[in-house]
C-alpha cells in the first residue's frame, strides 16, 4: 500500500530517525546523477572507481525511493466489484461451492483460483547478492525486487517469502507446507551447496515446478550464449574442451547441462580456489560428504588428468566459463593467449568480470560475454526465468526437469539467431522482448512432450498466451502511473542538500 502522504509526490522521504542515522553513517555518497537505468557507454578498466561511485549513488537513491514507496509490489483485485453484493460471489456464500469443487478435484485449484499464475519467492537470506548471509528480513527488498521482475517481465504474480529456518530440512518442510497456494516455487539467494539439496528435495516432494535462479537461470543463460558462441566459431559442444572457473551454484549446473548436451566429460575441467578439481585431490573425500554435487563432477570430469591452477587448465582450451570472484585480474591475458584458436571467454562475475572484455579481446578472445548490461553479450538470469515460469505456469507443469531448462537455453539461442547472430549479439538484450514469449512457448511445448503438463495447449496457444500475459504488466504499470495511482518518481535530492 502506498503511503497516502506520498501520493502527491511532494514528500521525498518518510522521515525516520533510524533511517536518517543509517544514511548519515553510510559510506555511500549522495545521489549526484539522474542517469539511472540509462544505457552507458563501455567503460575502460581505469573507470572502475567511477563505477563504484555510481553503484553507491544507486544505493542511496534506492534507499530514498524505498522510503518513499514503502514496498515495490501490492495485491490488486482482478475481478470487478460493482457493489458490495458481489462479495456474495467472490466470498461467502458463493465461494463455498468453488472450494467444494477443488476439494473433490484438487487440480481444479489451478483453474478456479490464481494458483496457476502465483509463485512463491522463498529465501533464507543465506547468500543475498554479494552481501552474504544477511538473514531473511534483510533479504526482503531483494525478494520484492524479484517479484517486480516476475510481474513486469513474465506476468507472474510472485509473493516474496523470506523464511527464518535453521536447517535445509526445515526449509524444505516449510516450503512443502506452503505449496498448496502456489503454481511454482522460486528459490532465491540460498548459499551453495545447501541450495542443491533444497532444490533436489523440493523437486522430489512437490508436484509444481521448483526453480533456483542462481543454479538454473544462470546456467541456462550461459549455455544459450555458449551454443551461439560455438556456432559462430564453427565448433560443436561435443568436441570442445571447456574450463569452468568457479564451482558454485551456477557452474556446477552449467557443467551438468553441458554433459547432458553431449559435452565429453573428459574434456570438461572445473577449477575452484584450490585449483583444478580432480578425483585425486586431497579434499575429494570431504566433498563427498559436504558437496556431493561437486564430488560427482570431480569423479567424472578432467579426463586429461590435469592438475594445478587455472593457467594449467586453460592451456589449449576452447572455452572458459568463469563464474567466480569479481576481480579483473583473475584471468590474465596470458591465460587467454594460451587457449586454442578463437577462444570463447565468458567472464560472468558481478559487478566486476574476471577479465575486462577489451583485455580479453586484445589477448585473442574471439567472443566475450559478461554479466553486465553495459557490455555486449550480457548473460543475465532475467533472459530466462520470466520465460521459463511463463511456460511452465501456462502448462500447469508438475516440474522443471533439465530437459526443459535445455529447451529454454536452446530457444533463447535460436531466438537470438533469428534476429542476427554476431560476436556482439550472442543473446537477446532485455529490449528484444519478443524473444521471451517464444522461449515460454518452447518451454510449454516441452512440458507437454515430457508428460508433465496438466494443461496441454498447442504451440500457437502457448505463444499467444505468453505474449498476452508478458505484455500485460507493462500496460498495467503505465495505466497505474497515468491514473496517478502509482505516484511519479520523486525528484532527486541535490548533493548535500536538503531532502525536500
Amino acid at each position, binding site marked *: 500500500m502506498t503511503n497516502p502522504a506520498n501520493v502527491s509526490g511532494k514528500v521525498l522521504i518518510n522521515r525516520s530517525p533510524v533511517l536518517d542515522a543509517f544514511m548519515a553513517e553510510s559510506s555511500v555518497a549522495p545521489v549526484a546523477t539522474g542517469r539511472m537505468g540509462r544505457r552507458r557507454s563501455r567503460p575502460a578498466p581505469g573507470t572502475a572507481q567511477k563505477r563504484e561511485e555510481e553503484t553507491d549513488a544507486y544505493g542511496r537513491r534506492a534507499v530514498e525511493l524505498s522510503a518513499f514507496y514503502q514496498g515495490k509490489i501490492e495485491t490488486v483485485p482482478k475481478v470487478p466489484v460493482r457493489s458490495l453484493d458481489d462479495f456474495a460471489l467472490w466470498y461467502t456464500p458463493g465461494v463455498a461451492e468453488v472450494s467444494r469443487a477443488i476439494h473433490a478435484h484438487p487440480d481444479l485449484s489451478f483453474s478456479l483460483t490464481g494458483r496457476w499464475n502465483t509463485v512463491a519467492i522463498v529465501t533464507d537470506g543465506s547468500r543475498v547478492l554479494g552481501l552474504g548471509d544477511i538473514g531473511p528480513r534483510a533479504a526482503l527488498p531483494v525478494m520484492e525486487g524479484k517479484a517486480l521482475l516476475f510481474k513486469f517481465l513474465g506476468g507472474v504474480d510472485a509473493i516474496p517469502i523470506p523464511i527464518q529456518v535453521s536447517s535445509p530440512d526445515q526449509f524444505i518442510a516449510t516450503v512443502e507446507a506452503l505449496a498448496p497456494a502456489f503454481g511454482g516455487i522460486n528459490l532465491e539467494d540460498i548459499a551453495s551447496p545447501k541450495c542443491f539439496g533444497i532444490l533436489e528435495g523440493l523437486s522430489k516432494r512437490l508436484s509444481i515446478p521448483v526453480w533456483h535462479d542462481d543454479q538454473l537461470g544462470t546456467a541456462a543463460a550461459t549455455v544459450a550464449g555458449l551454443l551461439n558462441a560455438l556456432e559462430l566459431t564453427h565448433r560443436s559442444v561435443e568436441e570442445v574442451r571447456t574450463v569452468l572457473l568457479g564451482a558454485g551454484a551456477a557452474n556446477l549446473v552449467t557443467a551438468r547441462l553441458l554433459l547432458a548436451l553431449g559435452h565429453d566429460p573428459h574434456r570438461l575441467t572445473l577449477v575452484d580456489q584450490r585449483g583444478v578439481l580432480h*578425483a*585425486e585431490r*586431497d579434499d*575429494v*573425500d*570431504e566433498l*563427498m*560428504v*559436504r558437496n*556431493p554435487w561437486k*564430488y560427482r563432477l*570431480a*569423479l567424472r570430469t578432467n579426463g586429461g588428468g590435469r592438475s594445478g591452477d587455472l593457467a594449467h587448465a586453460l592451456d589449449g582450451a576452447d572455452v572458459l566459463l568463469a563464474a567466480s570472484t569479481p576481480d579483473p585480474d583473475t584471468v590474465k591475458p596470458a591465460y587467454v593467449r594460451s587457449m586454442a584458436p578463437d577462444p570463447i571467454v565468458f567472464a560472468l562475475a558481478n559487478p566486476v568480470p574476471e577479465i575486462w572484455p577489451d583485455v580479453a579481446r586484445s589477448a585473442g578472445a574471439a567472443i566475450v560475454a559478461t554479466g553486465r548490461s553495459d557490455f555486449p553479450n550480457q548473460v543475465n538470469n532475467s533472459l530466462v526465468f520470466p520465460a521459463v515460469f511463463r511456460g511452465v505456469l501456462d502448462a500447469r507443469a508438475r516440474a522443471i526437469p533439465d530437459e526443459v531448462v535445455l529447451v529454454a537455453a536452446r530457444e533463447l539461442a535460436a531466438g537470438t539467431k533469428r534476429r542476427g547472430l554476431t560476436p556482439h549479439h550472442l543473446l537477446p538484450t532485455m529490449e528484444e522482448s519478443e524473444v521471451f514469449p517464444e522461449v515460454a512457448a518452447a518451454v510449454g511445448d516441452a512440458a507437454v512432450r515430457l508428460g508433465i503438463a496438466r494443461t496441454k495447449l498447442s504451440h500457437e496457444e502457448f505463444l499467444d498466451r505468453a505474449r498476452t500475459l508478458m505484455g500485460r504488466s507493462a500496460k498495467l504499470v503505465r495505466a497505474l502511473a497515468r491514473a496517478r495511482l502509482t505516484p511519479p518518481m520523486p525528484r532527486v535530492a541535490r548533493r548535500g542538500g536538503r531532502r525536500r
Partner: protein
Amino acid sequence: MSATGDGSARPGTSASPEGPGMSIHLRPARDADVPVLVPLLLRLKRLNEEFDPLLKVRDDADEQARQVLHANLADPKAIVLAAEGVGADKDRVVGFVRAVVRERPFYVPEHEGVILDIYLLPLYRRRGVGEYLLREISAALKAKGAGVVTAEFPAQNEIASRFYAKRGFRPITAIHARSL
C-alpha cells in the same frame, strides 16, 4: 573407527567389479604395501574428521598407521586386503580393507569380524568395487571363524550407514562420547 567410500552403487547393477572398463584385483596385503597403504588409511581417517571433533587425526598418525598396519599383517586375527588396479593402474594399490576377528565373551556367535576400514580412491567408487571388497572380507572373516560381521564408522557418516544398510547391516551397539 572407519568409513566406507561412497557406497551408492547404482541400483540394479551387479556388484561385479569385473565389468568392462573396470576391474580390480584383490589380494592379501604384504609388508611391502605398507608405504602405499598409510596414505590411503590416513585419507580415510581425515574423512572421519568431517564427522566429529573427537575424530581429529593425531599429528603422529602417519607413524601410528605404519605400526598398526605392520602389527595387523603379523596378527593371525587381522586381515588386510589390498585392491590393485588393472590396465593403466596395474600393480597400483587403489584401495584396501582392514578387519579383525574379536571374541564375544557374552554373546553368540562367539566371534565377530569387525571391518575397521574400507577405503577406495575416488575414481574406483560407484562401480560396485566397495561391495566386492565387502563380500571378500566377509568371506575371509568367516573363514577365520567369525559368525557375524560388523562395521565401525562415525555415527554421522550417512554415506557409510546407507552403504551397509543396503547390504543388510543394522545398528546393534552404539558408542556415545563426550570429552573429559
